[in-house]
């Protein structure tokens, strides 16, 4: 669109709705910080203007937009003082056959002196860190004590299908007051996480997530380090009135997902860690946010990446920073050589579409205090050595001849604006000349918050059949591999990167835009930047009916999900729930003692 045409279209919008009034300007939220008084949730929740990450042109027509659903906050009307204060997570080490009682409940959280009603597993933030040995199996006796139906999904774990926690596919949602018994087995070492699979935009955002750390029997699985830390990376949207409301009937922020304005590391806005000079620290990182992709670094500390979602990399690799998308995990090691305070920062180049510029955005998530005292053991030599993981390479080698096989399936990622307000559609059409590979922040907060999962559809399209989202149903045989080409359409109405997650299986990201990936790791979530085509090799090892979806919570709510089935081999280890619909596991309200369904 030429400059003159842009002017005409934009002038028409302004002319139709007039200039921003003084009262409208007065309604602009102060942004983060505001009142310091505790927030008592009112039973009457109303929409208000969202916080602005930076001064933006206030286009009048946008200021009148509201999401087309009722504003909602959990526990509206509850006095936070009557709820238990959430406590920092505990580490629960479980042995094969153990049972864990897990409850989703309301909690009171205090963040920077302000009190909020939120959710927590077992009253903790994050949820309990479950530590188990590879190959073990545990029972999780889950109870739902929140106000919404829910389930628990064991992300990345190649679990028995009937316990995968997907409503309408493997179970019915657990209603408030209900219960469900999961059996979780852990075939792979690494770091995983658990979270709801019902209205993740609300439940996950408000604290329902936790990690599972699965230990390999090999004591040399990773290199030696001085300490290990398990970190969740998150954000929360807060303004002067408290938590920013959600949509009751449908998710808001459907365009880009809900970006928060307060960063939380392990649930804390100001994460702190103390280490000794020279220590090597292994960080198990999980991005549990609704939509934010982080670019994380630890001051100038040298870093190397060791493992991804489901396995180590073929080779450890030096990196400057860690780009991690929602639902992904990375295991990284850092060496803190010099005494002092090291900031943990998220550094991105955000875009101001109105001004046509990039601007740096640096957020500090916490600090690492490095003391003068030297590390008890010096692992600097081992840190400098980039290990070659022959076990991973051997595991992958048997599939190497499949890397160049013809593509078995394709997916195109796109979006349909649907019934979005005309103002949004028109303003977004002004700026389609360039879309960055990644949206690092909320570049259009007004339009974003007013976009609803009811009004727009994010789409997975199979170009071979024309089918979209849950009308797609691929079938694989257990044990086969499939090459899947995923293309993120640049010419979509509002393209955005998508972290694509496949349940129950593992995959290799073979290439991006034709450039082969020469250092592979097994993953379950692969990010597809705007305009890019990523080829993955899916190993269909785990029988059952599964889903694959974008892990931006609001995009999932807006329909960006498909199904696939892995049919068991004849005489193979078939899951009792394979191909079955909801209810194939333990049903709601029925709690049977251990054993099978």
């Amino acid at each position, binding site marked *: 669109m030429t*400059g003159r045409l*842009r*002017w005409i279209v*934009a*002038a028409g919008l*302004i002319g139709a709705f007039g*200039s*921003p009034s003084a009262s409208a300007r007065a309604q602009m939220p102060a942004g983060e910080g505001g009142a310091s008084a505790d927030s008592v949730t009112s039973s009457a929740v109303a929409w208000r203007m969202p916080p602005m990450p930076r*001064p933006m*042109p*206030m*286009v*009048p027509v946008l200021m009148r937009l509201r999401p087309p659903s009722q504003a909602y906050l959990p526990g509206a009307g509850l006095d936070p003082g009557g709820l238990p204060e959430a406590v920092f997570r505990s580490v629960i080490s479980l042995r094969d056959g153990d049972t864990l009682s897990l409850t989703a409940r309301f909690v009171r959280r205090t963040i920077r002196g302000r009190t909020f009603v939120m959710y927590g597993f077992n009253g903790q933030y994050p949820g309990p860190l479950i530590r188990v040995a590879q190959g073990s199996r545990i029972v999780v006796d889950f109870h739902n004590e929140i106000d919404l139906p829910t389930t628990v999904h064991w992300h990345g774990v190649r679990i028995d299908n009937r316990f995968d926690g997907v409503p309408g596919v493997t179970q019915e949602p657990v209603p408030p007051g209900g219960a469900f018994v999961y059996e979780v087995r852990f075939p792979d070492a690494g770091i995983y996480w658990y979270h709801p699979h019902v209205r993740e935009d609300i439940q996950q955002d408000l604290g329902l997530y936790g990690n599972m750390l699965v230990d390999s029997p090999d004591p040399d699985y990773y290199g030696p380090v001085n300490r290990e830390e398990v970190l969740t990376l998150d954000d929360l949207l807060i303004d002067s009135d408290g938590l920013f409301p959600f949509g009751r009937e449908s998710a808001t922020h459907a365009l880009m997902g809900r970006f928060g304005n307060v960063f939380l590391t392990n649930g804390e806005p100001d994460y702190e860690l103390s280490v000794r000079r020279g220590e090597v620290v292994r960080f198990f990182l999980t991005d549990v946010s609704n939509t934010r*992709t982080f*670019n994380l*670094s630890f001051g100038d500390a040298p870093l190397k*990446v060791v493992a*991804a979602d489901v396995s180590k*990399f073929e080779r450890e*690799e030096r*990196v*400057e*920073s*860690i*780009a991690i*998308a929602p639902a992904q995990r*990375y295991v990284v090691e850092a060496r803190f050589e010099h005494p002092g305070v090291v900031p943990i920062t998220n*550094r*991105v*180049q955000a875009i101001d*579409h*109105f*001004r*046509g*510029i*990039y601007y*740096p955005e*640096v957020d500090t998530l916490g600090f690492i205090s490095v003391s003068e005292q030297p590390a008890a053991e010096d692992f600097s030599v081992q840190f400098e050595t980039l290990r070659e993981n022959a076990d991973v390479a051997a595991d992958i080698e048997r599939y190497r001849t499949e890397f160049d096989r013809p593509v078995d399936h394709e997916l195109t990622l796109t979006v349909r604006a649907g019934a979005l307000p005309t103002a949004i559609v028109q303003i977004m059409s*002004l*700026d389609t*000349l*360039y879309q*960055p*590979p*990644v949206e690092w922040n909320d570049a259009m907060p007004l339009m974003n918050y007013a976009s609803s999962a009811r009004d727009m559809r994010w789409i997975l399209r199979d170009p071979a059949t024309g089918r979209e989202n849950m009308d797609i149903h691929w079938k694989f045989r257990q044990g086969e591999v499939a090459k899947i080409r995923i293309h993120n359409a640049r010419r979509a109405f509002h393209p955005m*990167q998508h972290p694509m997650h496949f349940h129950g299986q593992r995959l290799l*990201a073979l290439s*991006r*835009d034709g*450039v082969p*990936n*020469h*250092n592979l*790791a097994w993953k379950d979530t*692969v*990010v*597809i*930047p705007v305009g*890019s085509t*990523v080829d993955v090799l899916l190993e269909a090892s785990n029988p059952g009916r599964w889903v694959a979806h974008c892990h931006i919570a609001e995009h999932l709510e807006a329909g960006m999900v498909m199904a696939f089935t892995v049919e068991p081999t004849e005489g193979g280890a078939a899951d009792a729930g394979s191909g079955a619909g909801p209810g194939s596991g333990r049903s709601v309200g029925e709690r049977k003692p251990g054993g099978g369904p």
Partner: protein
Amino acid sequence: MRRTNDGLGAAGYMELFVAPSPFGITVSRDGRYLYDVAIRVETLRRRPGRSYVAWAATPELDQVKKLGVVDGSGPVIARVDWNKFLVLVTAEISADGERWEGPVLLTARSPSGLMHTMRGHGFFEAHGISC
């Protein structure tokens, strides 16, 4: 790439490849995208005593990086990590300079260079919207 008035008869193109990364997104520590830029010049009128050099520069021309010498043996491939950048092929007396001095024959810009400000469009100022 577009040829300039000095680049009559020249033709070439620029491809951007995402630099490899274990994360699937390749950015520097401060978040700038990392690209491997491949420049192929297909036709170039030979000028005696001149070397043809490919450069990258920020749009403000405050930073310049020599990408390589174009000698017809294959593409020039180099890494660029600027948010917006121009790519130029120039004819130089010496290929050793830190900045071009000769005529610019071919130009291209990064796709991000298509972004431009709405500042200066009258309606923003007329309605008191600071941009």
